């Protein structure tokens, strides 16, 4: 009964319809918390979990909620999962929760989540909806982490700094300092850096797509334009 396939859902979430790079949804957390890898990873995982949960529940209730009240119902479901994520973070990664602050409760306003509930989960069976939540969440998470890594590396010259906030004391010495101790380039950590790096990532994705399209076009068989005519001038008897 479903009109989508697993590979299609996967490709959509990770690349062709990536929430951060193509739909440009959830830009507020995307720009605000990607100063370091650990912040980006924390927020990304929280968002992904909310997205999987809300997509699943929305898919389960899709036949029982009338169209008129579907949006409030979706929002309440999302808010419930955000509250769960918030409580979990308070319990297990309290320091990171303190750093991310308002952006954890604000996941509820992330348009990507409501958008997936409305556009996908409310029309598909549970399995596909959950997979879509996972893939969209993963696509968002990967972009967040990439952005966080670039900004952290160029902004403060470290990579994987303070990872112990998320992974416990094991990760205390994961910090890499490829540029030495005294490196700092503040603009990458400040808001303008977020916009510039996001812009460059979007440009990079578009140029990769363009390169693929060019290659595909080259291999495509081109039919000859216009019908071929048999030569009729010359000596016809």
């Amino acid at each position: 009964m479903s009109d989508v396939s697993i590979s299609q859902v996967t490709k959509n979430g990770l690349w062709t319809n990536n929430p951060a790079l193509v739909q440009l949804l959830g830009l507020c957390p995307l720009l605000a918390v990607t100063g370091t890898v650990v912040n980006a990873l924390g927020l990304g995982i929280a968002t992904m979990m909310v997205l999987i949960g809300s997509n699943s529940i929305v898919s389960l209730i899709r036949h029982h909620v009338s169209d008129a009240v579907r949006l409030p119902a979706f929002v309440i479901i999302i808010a419930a999962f955000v509250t769960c994520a918030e409580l979990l973070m308070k319990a297990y990664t309290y320091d990171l929760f303190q750093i991310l602050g308002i952006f954890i409760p604000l996941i509820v306003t992330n348009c990507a989540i409501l958008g997936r509930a409305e556009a996908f989960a409310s029309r598909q069976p549970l399995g596909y909806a959950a997979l879509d939540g996972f893939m969209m969440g993963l696509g968002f998470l990967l972009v967040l982490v990439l952005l966080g890594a670039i900004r952290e590396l160029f902004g403060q010259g470290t990579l994987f700094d303070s990872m112990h906030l998320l992974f416990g004391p094991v990760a205390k010495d994961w910090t890499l300092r490829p540029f030495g101790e005294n490196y700092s380039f503040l603009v990458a950590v400040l808001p303008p850096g977020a916009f510039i790096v996001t812009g460059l990532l979007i440009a990079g994705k578009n140029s990769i797509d363009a390169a693929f399209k060019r290659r595909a076009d080259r291999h495509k068989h081109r039919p000859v334009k216009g019908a071929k005519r048999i030569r009729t001038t010359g000596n016809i008897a």
Partner: protein
Amino acid sequence: MAFKQVTSPHAHSAQKTSNVMQLVLLATVPGLVALTWQFGWGSIINVLLASITAVVCEAAIVHLRGRSVAFYVSDYSALVTAVLLGIALPPLAPWWVIVVGTVFSIVIAKQLYGGLGYNPFNPAMVGYVVVLISFPIQMTTWVTPLALLPEGVSHPGLIESLHIVFSGYTPADGVTGATPLDSFKHSSGLLVDQIYQRDPLFAQGIWAGAGWEWVNLGFLLGGLLLIAKRIFTWHGPVGMLGALALMSALFWDSGSSTSPGSPVMHLLSGATMLGAFFILTDPVSSAVSNRGRLIYGILIGLLVFIIRAWGNYPDAVAFAVLLANFAAPFIDNYTLPRTYGHTDRRRATEKEEG
């Protein structure tokens, strides 16, 4: 007898972009000479390093974009950006500050938007602001003006300056210090007269702070030359300087301890004249019509004063220009000139009703 048919606008002589840019470069010479005289070799090194970086970046990006490198590099616009940025950056700043600023100016602020003519922001000021907010320590250290050097200390010579810029060698004590605007901002609780007597930066100056007044007069001279050569009209600079003078006169309150400074100080300090004649007159990122440029200049003058008086930064030309660049399309929208042959101002651009 056949007449040659030419469509409007009817320009009498072709003023090529490269000619305009060369004249602008020439007009920076008085200010650059004053800078070198007052602050040593630093500014010259900045300008040269920024120029080399700018030309290399411009050529590389234009090549990547598949355009003619020779054509775009020979319009001198990258050099003008580089020279203005080199002048704006503090003398004897480390080389990487200059390179990072120039790369940002040319690659991000200019070429990524489509090159000369398409950039909404003044490239030199974007580069300046990026390094200003990224490297606050390096960007707020200025060289002490000639009159204020301690006994027996002189500005580092050319070789020593190169050492300081490229190998992080520290200059002798007393060679670097605050600028007059910075110092003025941080001497709170003193009457303006007391600051002028006690702070050697002001005591050694004639009008508005040792060294800086000459630099500003140098740029004023260059700017007047450009107006005389009709590179730009008087509207932008007069708007900015007028607004700045008016605001500082209004808030002068005869030199109390909270006074933001006299009009003379504001006009002859910091980047005022450089901004008025070389930065806000950038034809690409400013408003287009004369009336628009007047408003654009006034807006910059107001913003410069507001940020200098009540903001966190001692000088504000770069921020003011970037903010006004945002506003330029909006100003243009409301200051469309009347087209020839139409009585109504907006007739030519609006669709006929019905």
